[in-house]
């Protein structure tokens, strides 16, 4: 075992917040896979979720709201041997960074994106998130949100993600297994984690999720894209499958860059400039 621990500062989240369970899930998964803080790259988004930057140790960036995915993509390009994960919220990943999310799915970048999905913006005191149910009332939508919710699972499946899963912050045991599978997966993996915000979301509570979630049965064929897509659409009936909806094996982004041999950060400097300069003569 490593002599450095994943434990950073004591979390400042509200008592009972789903983030506590998610942190246990991430930390346990990393430990069980025998990572330590110097062997993992983490790109944190901004928000209550991203505040985990001080509570979980690693080679990390805590950048801008919505931009944690591009940052991770760059980290991975520069050192593809470093396992790289993204930790963010529904606002940063599906709202402000929604464009990056769908393009990272397309690229099958070898990163794991862990999203805290609590349907509200906690750190800015409770405005609606893009995953909130239509009609959800919040500080920014007093009469209820007009838009229909983003469907992250369906979006990921249709845009080319090669691992799409959903967990629940109230079920740490299965969450650990899902995160382990996501991190082990080669390619773009999404772990959407349903999570109560005990302070600002009085609808999507632990009780709500216990009632509306169910574990994907063993017979679920995660290699079947159509079946996975059907499962992802159940959110419209307020049913939330927990587990791995979809998984396939495809070449990952960095494997498709022919000039990339060892890690970019470690190769020797290129100095044979003559063919380039002489092309301008």
């Amino acid at each position, binding site marked *: 075992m490593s002599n450095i621990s994943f434990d950073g500062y004591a979390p400042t989240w509200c008592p009972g917040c789903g983030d506590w369970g998610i942190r246990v899930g991430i930390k346990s998964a990393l430990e069980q896979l025998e990572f330590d803080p110097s062997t993992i790259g983490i*790109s944190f988004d901004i928000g209550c979720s991203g505040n985990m*930057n001080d509570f979980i140790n690693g080679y990390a960036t*805590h950048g*801008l709201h919505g931009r944690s995915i591009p940052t991770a993509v*760059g980290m991975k390009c520069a050192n593809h041997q470093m396992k790289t994960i993204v930790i963010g919220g529904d606002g940063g990943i599906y709202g402000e960074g929604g464009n990056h999310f769908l393009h990272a799915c397309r690229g099958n970048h070898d990163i794991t994106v862990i999203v805290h999905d609590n349907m509200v913006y906690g750190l800015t005191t409770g405005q609606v998130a893009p995953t909130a149910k239509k009609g959800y009332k919040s500080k920014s939508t007093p009469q209820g949100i007009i838009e229909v919710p983003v469907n992250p699972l369906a979006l990921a499946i249709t845009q080319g993600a090669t691992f799409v899963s959903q967990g629940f912050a109230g079920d740490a045991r299965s969450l650990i297994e899902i995160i382990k599978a996501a991190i082990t997966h080669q390619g773009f993996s999404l772990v959407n984690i349903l999570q109560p915000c005990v302070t600002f979301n009085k609808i999507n509570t632990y009780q709500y999720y216990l009632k509306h979630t169910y574990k994907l049965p063993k017979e679920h064929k995660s290699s079947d894209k159509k079946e996975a897509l059907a499962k992802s659409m159940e959110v419209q009936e307020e049913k939330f499958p927990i587990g791995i909806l979809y998984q396939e094996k495809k070449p990952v982004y960095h494997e498709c860059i022919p000039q990339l041999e060892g890690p970019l*950060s470690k190769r020797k400097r290129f100095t044979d400039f003559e063919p380039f300069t002489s092309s301008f003569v």
Partner: protein
Amino acid sequence: MTSGLVFSKIATRSGYHIFDYTEYPSLIRGGHNTYEVLVSDDEVHGPKWDIDLLVCLNKATFDLHQYRLTDKSMLIYDPEMFEPDGSYVKVPIGFTKIKKEQKIDQMMVNTIAIGASVAMLGGNLSVFESIIQQQFDKKGKEVIDFNLQLAKIGFDEATKNDIQKLEILKKKDVAKTKMVVTGNEAFSLGTMAADCRYYAAYPMTPASTVLGVLAAWQYKNKMIVRHPEDELSVINSALGASYAGVRSAVGTSGGGFALMSEALSYAGIAEIPIVVFLAMRSGPATGMPTWTEQGDLLFAVHAGHGEFPKIVLTPGDPEEMIALTIKAFDLADIYQTPVLIVSDKFLSESHKAVIKEEVDKQMNEHVIDRGKIVADTNASPYLRYKHEEDGISEMLIPGKKGVFYQANSYEHIEDSHTTESGEERIKQVQKRNAKTNTYLKNHFELPKVFGELKDAKTVLVSYGSNKGPILDALTMLDSSVAFIHFTHVYPLPQEPIKKLFERCAGKRIIHIETNSHGQFAQLLRMQTGINLKEQLLKYDGRPFWPEEIRDYVLGKKAQTVEKKPTDQEVKSAAKDKRNTKETISQQEKDLLNKLKVFSKDTK
């Protein structure tokens, strides 16, 4: 290779210096496009007003450029299209006739025109032939031979008339090998020489050709070159790559740069090196995308919220572009902060001849300086943001066992954890601010002075791409005019700059810029208190003509405004047939008919 570039290379391979300049509308096909090449025994840095040889492939070319012709101007034109009015040296070439005989398209007429131009300028056809052979090497012998034939037809057509040939392109026996490069290509060469390993960009004129050049090179030089979904992804991915240990850069124009400005601020506080290439065009918003302007200087200097150190460089020509690009990567690493290279359409897309052995020397002899960026550390505990007098802490490339840290966009303490402590905040602010003084002490370069300040009665002050036209203007003026050229525009040290301007006391000082706000003058005033009052500003999307600067200094009516065609004349001369109602409906009909046939065929 465009025909204009082929012509430039014929000139450099014949032993001459060149400068070329293109104008084109923001369209893919059509519109009035021009390519002008100035050929000279000595180094040249800008375009020239009087046209010696005008190649007219249509009448509009003559109409639109007539006002830059003199009695001595030579005119290549097609008598089947029009007969030019006025006294010029007329060289009729039957383009239309040859086109029909040879069954060639309009693009190939260019080859004939170049052949004819080479003949009229006293050049050697073999120089053109060797370029054709290289250019079409991959397309096989048949294509090469056909193009050689067209070149010869043009050359012979022009030769057989009895008009006195010029000696502008007469091949020289001894000459140093020259490269023909644009500012963008110079930047690309600089990034390679500087060991940049990750370049990302979203296409935007006039920065796009950097992306094209580097993308094509990447399989050989092993750089990773990406075109992500937007500029936000562009710069944030580059910051991720930079954090992970590789030199990274991004390129864009004003609009894309605006999108990147939040990330600059992140790079500032998290102390991540990044080189940003900003090729300006006429703004605001979409503005005039294919035209030049220095309208983003103050924006570049101030981009990013909050206070953080930043270095802004403004190279004036391709040679300076290579040198300053290489330097920019060192500075970004040494100061662990954003470094901006500011270009504009004029510099980015104009070709200039540069001496190859000088470029080679610069690229090959550069020793990379990564400052305090290390792959290993003895520090225990390792403190990413350790307080240091020079403001610069050791930056560990992630990977060392037993260590971890974060690049934190929140204010942080030395070990990189987030803080809101007032005391710690002050220390980190002061640490970051200290970098500016360290830079001014160690790496700032004073502006270059051309001419003798001591003897000068008039001093021109400028920066960036104006260098070219100003230098060429100096050759038309006497020694009473000197020129101060800034390449390191931000930050500026107050005392040394004041001392420099004290030497200009009592002289006429004119600052020259291609924008309407006099942005550099504002920047100079802000940083040093020096107030330049007389200004020569231009903001019509065109670069300065050396003659324009000369005439202004001499207090003469500018030659360059004398005979300019009116707006109406430009419109009617360049009138695009596609814009008439009849052509539009014809185009629509044609397309619908084609679709009908197409759908029948695929049934």
